[in-house]
């Protein structure tokens, strides 16, 4: 297990380094930030001073080395716009995005798995067919459109839930969270639902397909032949087998949820990293963009690592083969 862990960590580090290079190159290919940052009537000397202050006059590879060196010190540059460390600015927004992504993940599992199992056990029933039809809508309608319809229906038409913002927050271990206050929960529900809908459909389809496959296995029939209750057959014998692919997919999807929260955050004016990224792109605030991308890469790589470890906890066969390896 330890050897496996070290090997996996090495792979993760490699992925992060490769991404650092790509991100740096990609971001430096767009526009000249100085044009936006200095006032239109600034003199040539003033522009020159700004360029020097930001280190933009050095060669590209020089800037990259400085960047990598700084990354190792936890310094991802200073925001052109706010004049503060870019990482701090992104990190301030991280809890809001993580909260949104985790609640969305929770909703997609809590609703998706039971519906998927139901549809898998009764594939020909009206209920099962409706679930499948609904899931098609879930992942084929555009996310931003779903968000706007949710706002239109629940916020404008029914007036039950607020249309945007984060609401009242409380600090837990110094991190502001919304889900512990009623007002915060109300603000959280719609964006989380919006972000969850796509993943929920994915979970439903995945769970259903796996349930149908597992339910026909001999070991399920044997479990029934042992005379144990239907409930135990479903919740222990079937569920534990279908959780293996579900956990794998969800781990990968959590990363993309953090990344794709951009759309939901923009629609619902949720003050998270995604909204910050859009703002920074408009202002060509390179260090913030780089800091956001690097942090996202870091999170996704980290999640994949956790999933691999979880996977071996769920599937004893993986555990054994890794001990041998």
């Amino acid at each position: 297990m330890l050897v496996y862990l070290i090997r996996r960590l090495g792979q993760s580090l490699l992925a992060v380094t490769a991404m650092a290079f790509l991100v740096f190159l990609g971001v430096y290919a767009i526009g000249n930030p100085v044009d936006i940052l200095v006032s239109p009537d600034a003199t040539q000397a003033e522009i020159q001073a700004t360029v020097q202050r930001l280190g933009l006059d050095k060669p590209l590879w020089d800037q990259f080395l400085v960047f990598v060196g700084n990354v190792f010190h936890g310094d991802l540059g200073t925001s052109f716009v706010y004049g503060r460390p870019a990482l701090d600015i992104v990190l301030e927004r991280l809890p809001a995005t993580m909260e949104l992504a985790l609640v969305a993940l929770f909703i997609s599992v809590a609703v998706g798995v039971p519906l998927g199992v139901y549809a898998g056990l009764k594939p020909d029933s009206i209920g099962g067919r409706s679930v499948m039809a609904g899931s098609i809508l879930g992942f084929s309608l555009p996310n931003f459109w779903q968000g706007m319809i949710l706002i239109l229906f629940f916020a404008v038409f029914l007036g039950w839930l607020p249309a945007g913002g984060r609401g009242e927050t409380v600090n837990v271990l110094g991190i502001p969270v919304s889900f512990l206050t009623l007002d915060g929960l109300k603000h959280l529900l719609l964006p989380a639902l919006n972000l969850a809908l796509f993943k929920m459909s994915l979970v439903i389809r995945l769970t259903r397909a796996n349930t149908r496959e597992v339910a026909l296995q001999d070991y399920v029939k044997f479990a029934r032949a042992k005379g144990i209750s239907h409930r135990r057959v479903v919740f222990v014998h079937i569920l534990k087998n279908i959780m293996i692919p579900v956990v794998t997919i969800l781990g990968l999807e959590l990363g993309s949820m953090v990344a794709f929260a951009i759309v939901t955050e923009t629609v619902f004016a949720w003050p998270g990293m995604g909204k910050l990224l859009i703002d920074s792109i408009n202002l060509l605030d390179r260090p913030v963009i780089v800091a956001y991308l690097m942090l996202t890469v870091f999170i996704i790589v980290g999640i994949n690592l956790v999933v691999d470890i979880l996977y071996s906890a769920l599937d004893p066969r993986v555990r054994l083969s890794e001990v041998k390896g």
Partner: protein
Amino acid sequence: MTALLDVRDLKTHFFTRDGIAKAVDGVTFSVERGEILGLVGESGSGKSVTGFSLLGLVDPPGKVVSGEIVFDGADLVAGGEEAIRGLRGKRIAMIFQDPMMTLNPVLKIETQMVETVLAHADVSRTEALTRCREALLRVGISAPDERLASYPHQFSGGMRQRVAIAIALLHEPDLIIADEPTTALDVTIQAQILAEVQKLCAETGTALIWITHDLAVVSGLADRLAVMYAGRIVEEGPTSEIIANPLHPYTRGLIESVPHGKPHRSLLQQIKGMAPSLLNLPEGCSFRPRCPRADDACRRAQTLGTPLPGRHVRCVHPYIEG
């Protein structure tokens, strides 16, 4: 004394897109307490489906459409799911064909055994564990504590089948349905498992329905044989008599295709043709197209006759001397 299990005119049909497949079409047999019945037939003859029907474990689109399954005086078909569920694993147990597939890969042996005990007995976990240990020892598995903490993939095929047998024996059932339990095993392991099951059944007075396509295996084990062809029993009677003097042409064909006791290099007799599709059975006797003795009389519907005492056969031209 009435029989432990009395199956009368059992019909299990599969409602497929291409039509109704009559996998079991009017099967009648009975099993006495402590008796071993061999249910013999080739693939697709309906022998496994008969076994699953007894426990109410036929998967859709299959369904028991009519007939009676009277177990110890109660009709399981009329009683429905309720009547069968209480008996499964407790009074009627089942052993499956492929030991690699019958144990859940993600659950420990302990979990899979203890749940079986707790499903039918109101005992503590410790007491349940003790019973599991005893059951494992009984089927010849040493170091039961270590085995209980293992997962199925850490076992060999023969060992898994022993575990499955141990699970079947947990509640000392009145009847065990064994669906080709040795087919997937090595010959040496096969012999061990056979001897083991025979011994255990004799000890506990458990009746056994041994489903197989292998006449060689079952001839040394069963008290009586029932030969199935295309969803029907074509011949039934005491094992020694059937082996010595098969009445139905199909049974004779089966026995002749077993290589035992033939001179070296002599050609094996085989049954011509293939088992018919269950969706499209020939009228009259379903064995007619493959039968060497078939004539126009075979086109009529066949009934089970008793040409000799204790011998039942579904044929108008049975092999009777004289």
